[in-house]
């Protein structure tokens, strides 16, 4: 049975709010789905969801698959007397996308927007400058502090209010980074027979603020090898040429040789490439060393790391876009690769 990407479930996961530190609803939904497959499972003190099979059996190298549950977003830092909300960004966001951005605020997902003083009243020499986040406010329509306080508190998160939907032949949603990775792992697991070799799956938290969840999970698991399912930049836009594109949509998942935090284990990456070639699954190489993932944390705990990334346009923005064919290929690659365990030493050259 080949793996199948459930796009409805992907859309549902992407639409859920799960800014770093507030991943509960996403984690619950994922647990609901993978529960029938679990042998051992727990939620660690930071909130990461970890599943293991045969982890202490000693039957082979201990392999962990990881994807993160959290997304970038905003956090409310205060309420002004006019009932507007001060905020800061959680994770890396280009502040230029914020003015006029539709949001859902707090536990109840109250609609809001990022208010921008009208350009008509802005001095001419400031009209082409981006506003600082400190000068922006979220407007939920409250007429004063009291009305706002009834529905929102400092510490509440706000997420981009975009709905997952097709965009031409592509698929656009917020939080493709990294719900796509989560969905790829689950699709591969659901297509495989029950694991006989040591395997762990870690759905980590707080990746966007510095791979915090992975740090804790890596230390507690002590894996030998880790494969990170992430997303990566596709800058295949007009006027961007060659290597500066990093990856492009429609050419399959990307394998990483090196990113900002780690140099990939060449042997594990080689087995992934071999599996793709032999199964006729398209893939590409990520052509830049930028970006950090949970991989660095696992490598720090003496695991060999490989990263499989889904090319995505407009990461960390309300409408990231990916090619559904690439996600299909990614799930298939993972499934093929896992089916061929244990890998012989010769294959890892």
């Amino acid at each position, binding site marked *: 049975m080949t793996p199948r990407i459930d796009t409805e479930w992907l859309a549902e996961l992407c639409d859920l709010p799960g800014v770093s530190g507030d991943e509960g609803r996403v984690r619950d939904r994922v647990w609901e789905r993978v529960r029938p497959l679990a042998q051992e499972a727990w939620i660690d003190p930071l909130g990461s969801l970890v599943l293991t099979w045969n982890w202490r059996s000693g039957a082979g190298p201990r392999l962990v698959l990881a994807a993160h549950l959290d997304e970038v977003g905003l956090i409310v830092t205060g309420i002004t007397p006019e009932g507007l909300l001060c905020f800061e960004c959680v994770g890396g966001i280009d502040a230029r996308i914020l003015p006029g951005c*539709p949001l859902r605020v707090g536990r109840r997902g109250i609609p809001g927007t990022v208010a921008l003083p009208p350009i008509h009243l802005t001095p001419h020499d400031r009209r082409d400058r981006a506003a600082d986040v400190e000068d922006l406010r979220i407007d939920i*329509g409250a007429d004063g502090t009291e009305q706002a306080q009834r529905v929102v508190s400092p510490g509440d998160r706000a997420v981009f209010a*975009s709905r997952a939907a097709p965009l031409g032949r592509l698929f656009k949603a917020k939080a493709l980074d990294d719900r796509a990775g989560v969905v790829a792992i689950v699709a591969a697991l659901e297509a495989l027979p029950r694991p006989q070799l040591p395997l762990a799956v870690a759905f980590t938290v707080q990746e966007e603020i510095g791979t915090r969840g992975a740090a804790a999970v890596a230390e507690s698991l002590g894996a030998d090898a880790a494969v990170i399912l992430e997303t990566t930049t596709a800058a295949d836009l007009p006027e961007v040429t060659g290597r500066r594109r990093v990856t492009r949509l429609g050419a399959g998942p990307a394998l990483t040789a090196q990113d900002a935090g780690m140099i990939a284990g060449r042997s594990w990456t080689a087995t992934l490439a071999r599996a793709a070639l032999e199964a006729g699954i398209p893939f590409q190489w990520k052509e830049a060393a930028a970006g950090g993932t949970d991989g660095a944390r696992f490598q720090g705990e003496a695991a060999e790391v490989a990263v499989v990334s889904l090319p995505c346009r*407009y990461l960390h923005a309300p409408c990231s876009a990916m090619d559904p064919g690439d996600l299909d290929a990614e799930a298939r690659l993972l499934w093929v690769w896992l089916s061929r365990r244990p890998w012989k030493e010769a294959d890892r050259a």
Partner: protein
Amino acid sequence: MEERRGCVRIPRHAEIGGECGLALDGRALLRELLTAGGPSGAEGAATDLLRREWGLLADEVGGDALGNLWVCRRARGGRPAPTVAFAAHVDVIGLIVTRILPGGFLRFAPVGGLDLRSLLSREVVLFGRRPVPAVVATLPPHLTTAEGRRRIPPVDELVLDTGLPDDELAGAVRPGDRGRLAVGPADLLGGRLCGAGLDNRAGVAALHETLLALRGHDLPCDLHVVANVQEEVGLRGIGPVGRRLRPAAAVVVDVGFAAQPGAPAHLTAAAGGGPALAVGPALHEGLGALLRGEADRLGIPLQREVVAGNSSTDAWALQVAAGGVAVGLLSVPLRSMHTPGETVDYADVAHTGALLASAAQAMDPAWAGRLVTRLAGGGEEP
């Protein structure tokens, strides 16, 4: 006075549905308008909707080759009645496709004053052979510097991403097709609304409230309620309307600046504090006094806005469109103008509509006769 005109009520949804089968109250109409098309020059989708809705509330419907739409409630009785117009521009800012690029991308230009600072990463919809969704593309961090991220790119450096393959895109969208921002509408707290296009669909909704409130009431004037076009690209639509209808008096309903951080307080009005009445040299004092009087009588909160010269609204163009029009300007306070995060308090829209309904009933031949001061001779008015 009270007995003659009675109180003007703001109809609730249930009443309308029960009374004469009309579908939309003001707020529902506003929501529909906010998702209809209609950037400057391509207002058809919005005026089609209004022609249907307003046609049920008036005696006559008219329009012209530019796309302007008006409806008329005729005065009761046989005496010559003054022509009065209430106008709100129905076009919204948007964009126009200039070039198709390979890979599903498009170049575009703004239609009207799109605030480029709020454009990155926004969803848009293009009105080609069919509605085509697209996203304003952004460059990822590795291709920008910290200094570069402080700068808003000019519009000719931006592209739209439709995700369509080249042949499908060529079949669906062509240069010259229009588009608009696809954000909202959303209901905020306390009766406030948020969404791209509240400038000036909120003004149009206020006129809808006026027409609803005037049902069953006789008028002493021939009242034309106008949804005019192409305001955002230089007040182009209102002139021909003025020349055609030749109103003695007119009130323009637009949106104005609401108080928000970063906007100088003395240039703004409070959202929720009622419409703002503009006063200044190019606005008719007598008409302003009439509006203020009606507001006081009905207990409608009315704020004041001072305009030293050009209000940058249709009022400026209409004043001289046809032999001198006594023109007034009411503004619904709006935050974050020309961004997709525009917000209004619907109570201000409703109050504007109610105020105009009351004012229309006061614009009788005697009042209108005082607009021109005849000094000699007894001939006909021009």
